[in-house]
């Protein structure tokens, strides 16, 4: 392989790892705290991307400025979905919530296809194609910005979970629900808040993705799958673990794309299979949320 392609691959992988971390972190807190494998995660991401697209196309709102809007809207949506839908079956076995989020994903994608059509769409601000070169390696500004925003959001989540009373209540609920209730934590509200955070993070990732890549109603599934693999890689429910898992996964994806372009998705799943066999607790090996 040429060294240029190799260096560009490294840069691309690093840029990709930021977005993937943002996608996976929301998936991870919902899984870790609520014990729900949220298959609708990618669908929320897609809706976030469309919010940005419509705000840009209809009102000319800069896609980066639409980030808080898309996150806020989907925060509310996530809260309501958990509180009034998923909460009804929260005591049911994992399979029931799994199926419910699967159904939710299909409904959201179908509604999106119905209202917005299945066409590929792009968010194209004036600066979309700009970038800079490091030697021969190209670095697009929007992807670099997306990378740093992803890191900032992930960092903010970490600070929230570690240093605020509410964040501690969320973690406590994930570790021992009865003990959390005995400290006065209200579980339904805490669950809804956690799900809302996960949904908002998915939407934020959707916004950032929509600036760099074309979007369509089915775009989310691939991200749900990646988030799943990253959580397994990084060990469930640890923010550093998710970051590590995202980097590893991004490198595997980018380089398998360079070496075996047609096997890209298969390799993601191959990694999943290998991790489950070799080290089921993930790289970080943490069993629960920290």
């Amino acid at each position: 392989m040429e060294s240029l392609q190799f260096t560009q691959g490294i840069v691309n992988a690093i840029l990709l790892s930021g977005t993937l971390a943002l996608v996976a972190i929301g998936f991870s807190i919902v899984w870790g705290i609520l014990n729900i494998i949220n298959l609708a995660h990618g669908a929320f991401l897609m809706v976030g991307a469309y919010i940005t697209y419509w705000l840009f196309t209809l009102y000319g709102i800069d896609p980066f400025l639409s980030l808080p809007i898309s996150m806020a809207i989907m925060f509310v949506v996530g809260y309501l979905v958990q509180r009034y839908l998923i909460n009804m079956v929260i005591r049911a076995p994992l399979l029931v919530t799994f199926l419910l989020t699967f159904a939710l994903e299909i409904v959201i994608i179908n509604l999106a296809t119905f209202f917005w059509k299945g066409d590929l769409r792009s968010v194209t601000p004036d600066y979309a194609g700009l970038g800079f070169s490091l030697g021969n390696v190209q670095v697009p500004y929007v992807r670099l910005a997306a990378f740093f925003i992803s890191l900032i959001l992930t960092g903010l989540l970490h600070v929230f979970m570690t240093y605020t009373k509410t964040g501690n209540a969320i973690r406590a609920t994930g570790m021992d629900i009865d003990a959390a209730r005995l400290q006065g934590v209200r579980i339904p509200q805490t669950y809804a808040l956690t799900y809302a955070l996960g949904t908002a993070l998915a939407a934020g990732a959707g916004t950032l993705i929509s600036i760099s890549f074309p979007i369509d109603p089915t775009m989310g599934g691939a991200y749900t799958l990646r988030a799943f693999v990253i959580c397994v890689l990084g060990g469930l429910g640890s923010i550093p673990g998710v970051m590590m898992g995202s980097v590893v996964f991004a490198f595997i994806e980018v380089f398998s794309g360079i070496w075996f372009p047609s096997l890209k998705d298969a390799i993601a799943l191959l990694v999943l299979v290998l991790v489950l066999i070799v080290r089921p607790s993930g790289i970080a090996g943490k069993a629960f949320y920290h």
Partner: protein
Amino acid sequence: MLKITDLNVAYGEVQVLWDVNMEIHESEVVALIGANGAGKSTLLYTISGLLKPKSGSIQFNGTEIAGLPADEILRLGIGQVPQGRHLFAGMTVKENIMMGAYLRKDKQKVKEDFDFVLDLFPRMGERLNQPAGSLSGGEQQMCAVARGLMAAPKLLLVDELSLGLAPLVVENIYNAVEKVIQRGMTVLIVEQDVFLALEQADRAYVLDVGRIVMSGPADELMENPRIKEAYLGI
């Protein structure tokens, strides 16, 4: 302060508590004793609102609390140190202790109480930034008591503090509980070590297969031949 009348509690079809009547007065230390599976923890969980009773009444300072959500019962002033400690294993000792004050808004008082529990258990002060899961059994129990006290409850329910701990550690923990009692806190002690419980308590209730079968002043029960035979092994 607490008045339980004709309380019946069931897990689904299986009834665990039958017509339980119990009363705790302000500043009193009451022991609840009984064999494993008698329903002691079930009674505590029902008082704290983790379980809903099938029928009956629980009044706390005149307010009916049976069936209220756990956070409202805690807000009214009933705190619990649950059996088996139930610490948040991945959180630090400090985070665990501060979770006890989750509902409190009086920051200054919370700080004072934090200093008080560290005074009570100096070992916790040395371990503040350690994950609670890495503590020894005795330290975990101290952490759980500290967390329970941080809610500043009017009535504290403590469940099996001595379980699985060395006698010296148990003594250490009960010395701390005694200090709390001296400050005027009302305490309900559930304890499989009947001698220990009766030593601490003013009065006691004996729970047997879900029913209160005996009650009275602790020193009288200590001399009761049935208690001696069944629980004290004398």
